[in-house]
């Protein structure tokens, strides 16, 4: 099984530790991972802002980099979702179809493809999960509170096996944090209010750490937490799963 690692543009530049944790974790799980060096971005920032046509170059570049892999794995639910859902704007060649079918968010890949739940991590803290929307309602990484059906969650499956980790439960377990890409800027007031409310829910529920499958949501929440000097730490789920403190 040949796996290509996709590290989203802003994780590459601003949160390299998330990329490193992802790579190390996959290697620990004996996955044969390669990191193609020509990668940039999945194209989502332009597309979600209404400029899909400006993202064609990024889409083609993505497919070029990953067309020879059996799976593409990324520590970002929203990028995986974007490739799956919005890559219709480029011609649907066999390569494009393959890449779209085989792109996976990290937790999804570990639980549903590798069929592993215990990654031998140790992390003795109270963890609040922020279920990032694109992973949740786009990729169905877990059951959604609006829908009627059995409850499940790849993220919780993994965290439940982490030694010492305690999962706290939130009052609103899958409400959006208010990031939303350029929404965070164009609708600044609402975005900030949503983020503040989300943080309050975590604090009220006794979380010490907020984690998520998407660093973008965490960047927004961390920005508020730091500005308001609140007692919460923010970590991408790969960092927790790769931890052995």
């Amino acid at each position, binding site marked *: 099984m040949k796996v290509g690692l996709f590290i989203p543009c802003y994780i590459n530049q601003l949160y390299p530790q998330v990329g490193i944790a992802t790579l190390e974790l996959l290697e620990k799980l004996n996955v044969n991972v390669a990191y193609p060096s020509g990668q940039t971005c999945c194209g989502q920032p*332009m597309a979600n802002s209404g400029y899909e046509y400006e993202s064609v170059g990024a889409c083609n570049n993505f497919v070029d980099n990953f067309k020879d892999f059996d799976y593409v794995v990324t520590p970002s639910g929203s990028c995986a979702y974007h490739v799956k859902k919005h890559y219709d704007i480029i011609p649907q060649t066999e390569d494009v179809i393959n890449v779209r079918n085989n792109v996976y968010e990290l937790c999804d890949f570990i639980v549903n493809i590798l069929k592993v739940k215990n990654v031998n991590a140790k992390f003795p803290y109270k963890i609040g999960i922020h279920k990032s929307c694109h992973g949740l309602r786009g990729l169905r990484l877990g059951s959604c509170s609006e829908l009627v059906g059995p409850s499940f969650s790849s993220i919780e499956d993994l965290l439940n096996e982490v030694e010492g980790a305690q999962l706290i439960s939130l009052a609103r377990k899958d409400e959006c944090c208010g990031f939303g890409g350029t929404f965070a800027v164009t609708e600044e007031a609402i975005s900030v209010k949503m983020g503040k409310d989300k943080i309050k829910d975590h604090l009220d529920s006794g979380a010490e750490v907020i984690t998520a499958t998407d660093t973008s949501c965490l960047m927004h929440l961390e920005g508020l937490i730091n500005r308001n000097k609140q007692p919460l730490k923010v970590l991408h789920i790969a960092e927790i799963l790769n931890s052995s403190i």
Partner: protein
Amino acid sequence: MNHSKAASIFNKDEKKVDWHDKALWFVRHKRDKAVHAVEGWESLRNYGHGIKAHTLSNLDNYLIQFEENALKNGVQVHWAANGDEHNKIVHGILKEHNAKKVVKSKSMLTEECHLNPFLEADGIEVIDTDLGERIVQLAKESPSHIVLPAIHKTKEEVDELFQEHLGTKPSGGDPQYLTGEARKHLRKKFISADAAITGVNFAIAETGGFVVCTNEGNADMGAHLAPVHIACMGIEKLIPKQEHLGVFLRLLARSATGQPITTYSSHFKKPVNGNKMHIVIVDNGRTEQLSRPDFRASLHCIRCGACMNTCPIYRRSGGHSYDATIPGPIGSILSPGKDLTKHSSLPFASTLCGSCSDVCPVKIDIHSQLYKWRQIITKETPQPFVKKTSMKMMGKVFAKPMQFERIGKVARWSLRNLPKGVINSKPNVWGKERDLPSGPTESFDDWYKKRKDNEQ
């Protein structure tokens, strides 16, 4: 004013925002409890979706069938291409019956057509009889929610409004007292009305009948007391058969308020002896929306309001910030179809979290349609120069890995080295209330290259 500006004004009063958010979340929560108790809820949604899709694909035939049957039942049927025609038709019927006093039950369609000011201009008194609607009418406002029209008003505000207009005593916002007074006031209006106007929740092609749902019984009071009943409906309210009603009535009440069934689901079919019944069937942009393959499913909407209650943006920005008759997620996909320029900010008033699509009882892919409107809006309406150029530049940078690396380096350097005052200055809206990440010295690419070099 665009949505974002209006929303930031609404957000100045954080306590009120919290209250608004909690009130609507309470309804969403009630909805959850109610739907989780129904076995087969998801199949019911599938049925609802399927019936609507089928009806819209055969709408012409079903409309003809409905008209034929309604006529047979002794109902007069009128057709209006737009809001103006609708208003004129209603006005004409009222004139014909010399009706000066009208009681109206809740109808978003008449709001959409601005019927009240049209009739009032000719000296006709129009009283909205749904309590929430009456409240916003007294306040000279429009509804801010389709099911809970006065949800933006606190009970203290209602108290003051009633004192001013109905002469009530100050009660500190005592709901029991206030509803009692409203009841007395409305009762007088019902008894003296010359005509009643109602909306239509479902019209049945097979029978020519229609159903109106209310929790206060005000549609019934109006229609049963007045000699003339005018029902106004959009063309999309049609369902093929009586047996389909069971699906929609079960979906509607639970999604709207978490009730198993609306308190009054009133079936109307023919006028009682001596009385008159009219139906006005309105297009007003609906066939145009029907002709847009990407957006036609927006016409499935049964106006339950669940997407508003679940929407974290709507809950925190209030309905009026949408500046449209139908606010919230569904409004944001319907409104651009009517006036793309006026409503161009609405499809962007979303994080595309997708909660609206999952909560929608008839499975409208609301968030996907928001995404699609965005693509159209950037092409067909004027866009800010900065946004346009920055997107173009980003597109170029992301197409070329070498450029991406160079720009990334500059960005990280700036985050590390520029003073906070510069970084968080005006053009950086992000930094108003949020810190930016501190730029690391090394990107993932740099780290990976180094590791590779070390391995060799």
